[in-house]
């Protein structure tokens, strides 16, 4: 008999190209729909894929239900960040923010509802948008990225109301303090800055790289991820992942993780973080590594916790990064399956 070949279908030009594209795909952002049943994921080719979590999690799930329900070209460049309001999916990446109606997104040929571009000062290269943050209290959206500023956009009118300047390099991440109207931003310049939205003033600056406990010069200064809970803030990136007490601006816990972290979030009394490496890390606040759950991608860029009360059956953790797969963790201890582009 003929020797078995590794795959059944011979690859032509188109198939090879598609295989290479999938191989070099990076999923930068995720967002769960307001109903909790769908998950949108944006990749480096500007595509957004919408997966049906409820179908993939149902008992009669097939291989097809782990494929996107719909995939569409949203941006020309990578889709770096996405958030969902109660009606819209907002996506941004290459300098523009676009809004899509969740209600219509599953239909074919879905067009964006609107698109906005913050007022940029440079013209040579359009700065990217790395982070979107919804401020529900004043119904606004904060955009931050390549031009080192935080732009506030009124979601009612669609106008850009404020620009918060202070960072000296581009901004990686944003976090909202829930009680007071304050926003944290972390950037390539190695600082975490606290902004008061009422006065539009910078309140506090933490230069993380200058603290010896967490500084790692060989990795650089950049702050890649940021999360906050009351007076606590956790940030990581070039410097080690560190828990900070905001009022005293002191690092309280340095988490022993060598690889730079790209996403961090508080979850109950745990801190979940992901970055270079296959695993989702779970930390106790005391700095102990509670668990490392391996995923399928060599590096993770985003975590998403589906906590929508509308769909308790779809309460999962999803992680995506340097592959075309979105790993789904039905409980924190183990990867159930992967959704795939």
């Amino acid at each position: 008999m003929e020797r078995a070949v590794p795959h059944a279908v011979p690859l032509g030009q188109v198939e090879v190209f598609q295989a290479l594209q999938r191989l070099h795909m990076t999923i930068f952002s995720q967002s769960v729909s307001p109903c909790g049943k769908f998950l949108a994921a944006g990749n480096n080719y500007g595509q957004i894929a919408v997966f049906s979590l409820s179908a993939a999690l149902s008992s009669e799930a097939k291989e097809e239900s782990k494929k996107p329900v719909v995939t569409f070209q949203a941006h020309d460049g990578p889709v770096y960040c996405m958030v969902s309001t109660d009606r819209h999916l907002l996506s941004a990446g290459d300098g523009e923010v676009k809004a899509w109606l969740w209600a219509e997104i599953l239909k074919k040929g879905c067009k964006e509802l609107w698109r906005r571009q913050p007022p940029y000062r440079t013209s040579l290269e359009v700065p990217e948008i790395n982070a979107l943050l919804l401020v529900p209290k004043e119904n606004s959206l904060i955009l931050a990225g390549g031009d080192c500023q935080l732009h506030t956009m009124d979601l009612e009118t669609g106008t850009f109301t404020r620009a918060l300047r202070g960072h000296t390099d581009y901004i990686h991440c944003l976090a909202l303090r829930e009680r007071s109207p304050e926003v944290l931003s972390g950037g390539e310049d190695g600082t975490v800055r606290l902004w008061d939205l009422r006065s539009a003033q910078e309140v506090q600056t933490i230069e993380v790289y200058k603290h010896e406990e967490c500084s790692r010069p060989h990795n650089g200064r950049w702050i890649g991820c940021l999360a906050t809970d009351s007076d606590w803030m956790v940030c990581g990136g070039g410097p080690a992942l560190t828990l900070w007490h905001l009022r005293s601006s002191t690092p309280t816990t340095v988490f022993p993780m060598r690889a730079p972290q790209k996403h961090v979030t508080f979850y109950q009394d745990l801190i979940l973080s992901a970055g270079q490496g296959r695993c989702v890390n779970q930390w106790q606040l005391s700095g102990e590594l509670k668990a490392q759950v391996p995923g399928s991608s060599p590096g993770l860029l985003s975590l998403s916790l589906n906590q929508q009360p509308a769909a308790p059956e779809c309460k999962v953790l999803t992680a995506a990064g340097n592959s075309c797969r979105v790993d789904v963790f039905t409980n924190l201890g183990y990867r159930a399956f992967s959704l795939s582009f």
Partner: protein
Amino acid sequence: MSSESSKKRKPKVIRSDGAPSEGKRNRSDTEQEGKYYSEEAEVDLRDPGRDYELYKYTCQELQRLMAEIQDLKSRGGKDVAVEIEDRRIQSCVHFMTLKKLNRLAHIRLKKGRDQTHEAKQKVDAYHLQLQNLLYEVMHLQKEITKCLEFKSKHEEIDLVSLEEFYKEAPPDISKAEVTMGDPHQQTLARLDWELEQRKRLAEKYRECLSNKEKILKEIEVKKEYLSSLQPRLNSIMQASLPVQEYLFMPFDQAHKQYETARHLPPPLYVLFVQATAYGQACAHMKSSQPPRQDKTLSVAIEGSVDEAKALFKPPEDSQDDESDSDAEEEQTTKRRRPTLGVQLDDKRKEMLKRHPLSVMLDLKCKDDSVLHLTFYYLMNLNIMTVKAKVTTATELITPISAGDLLSPDSVLSCLYPGDHGKKTPNPANQYQFDKVGILTLRDYVLDLGHPYLWVQKLGGLHFPKEQPQHTVIADHSLSASHMETTMKLLKTRVQSRLALHKQFASLEHGIVPVTSDCQYLFPAKVVSRLVKWVTIAHEDYMELHFTKDIVEAGLAEDTNLYYMALVERGTAKLQAAVVLNPGYSSIPPIFQLCLNWKGEKTNSNDDNIRAMESEVNVCYKELCGPRPSHQLLTNQLQRLCVLLDVYLETESHDDSVEGPKEFPQEKMCLRLFRGPSRMKPFKYNHPQGFFSHR
């Protein structure tokens, strides 16, 4: 008594004398009779009864007289004598009376006889008449039955129907008013019409016959003319040969080829015809001038025609049938062979036998390199194979790493995706192989040539995967539909292989041969250098730790060619494992990188290495350069050098380490990092010469 009889005689004589005359005159003259013989008339007048009384009386009288005489005599005396005398006289009278009565009796008898006779004669005549009449009746009856049984010929004639007859026949024949009521007349009229028509048809038939005769004669004449034409044409052909040669118009040669082509097996014939047609079409399209001698595609037939003739008495024999029966025959006839091995070996040889004729296809490319293709037909497997050879105009110095590029075994591999040419395309063959213990055709392709799928299609053979057919018939349209694409692919394949060949020669010496028309893709100053370009084995590639993704994606097939490149700049060493698909350059070479600089960096631990791979693998289209983009590999390698430069120069400087940066930033970059994964500015913007993010 004697005296009585003598007395009686006398009247008899008298009567016999007079009797004949009496009879003649019987009716004509009764008066005369009365004169001569009253006696005959007297008979009629007398009553026979009374005569009988008279006769009795007379006899009594005589008896008494006799008795008285007797009495007288017995008494005797003289007076008695007188008395006796007296009595004698008296008795004499009585005798007279008796005589008379006798005669009368005779006459009466005669008369009675005559009457009887007469009546009898009358009865006889009547009887005869009756007989005649009866006979006549019988005859007439016979005639009547004969008439009744008479069959007319006209009943057998198939006449036209009545309506048709009244419609078509002229009125002087149909005579509708007469014939309508009278079926007899009608039939007669119809017969008349039939006769009329038949006469006309007979006339027509004669005409046609004469026409046919005429045409036959014409044909004869023309045939004669044609047969006289052949030798003349032959002589003209002979005479035109030098002219043909002079004008480069090898019509005669082509004719001879077609003659040979008749002995080709069907698939090779299809290939031959279609390839020739395609070659001619190309030659016509390329130039409006008459076909040149150096046309791009030339077709020829090789092999022994006589062998082919001997092999195929009826050339339409179904191949499958033949092979089946052959196999069976072998089993029966070769049983006496001693060893099973030899027997199997012979069977294998028989099964893999090629047709003695083969078709040669020479495909000429622009740079005068030629691809020689020889197509064979395996008779018993009903598949076609091809052997390829590339010759170039100028002698090539073969670089070590280019070993497989132009080898006959692999030059045509995967012309169409997945077409390795190592499996038999005919599903029926597997069963044949099982019979003689052939595991796979793979072991024989070096000898037989490769049975690529496109070869089968050029020969018009189609083997559907789903439903294997018993007989596969060579189909011209299938061949024609694949000819052009295949020829173009073949040409592209040869050219791209030759281009690769050239590039490899430079690459081995550490030179990345960027052509002038691709120069704009790269900055003027590239510091990283290619230092090594070697071929590696498929197994070695599979074992490399940084190629796992490619292997898992199924992109590392054993039909591909594998290379290892090493790019260096200072202490940084970038290994690049390259998969070269046989479909180069439409399918790009795939690079997997491993950088050794401050630790080992691959796509799994460094996003920028991943980005560099994606720059050469996914964004290869901007590196294709001018069509037909054979420079892709070179451009990709040069791009890799540029990428390494950018990677190294933009690496953020570790503040804690003393001393200057190893790689000072020389490239102009708008920003060093961008986005969540901190990409470096790998994109080169041509006229301005700066680097930006993609």
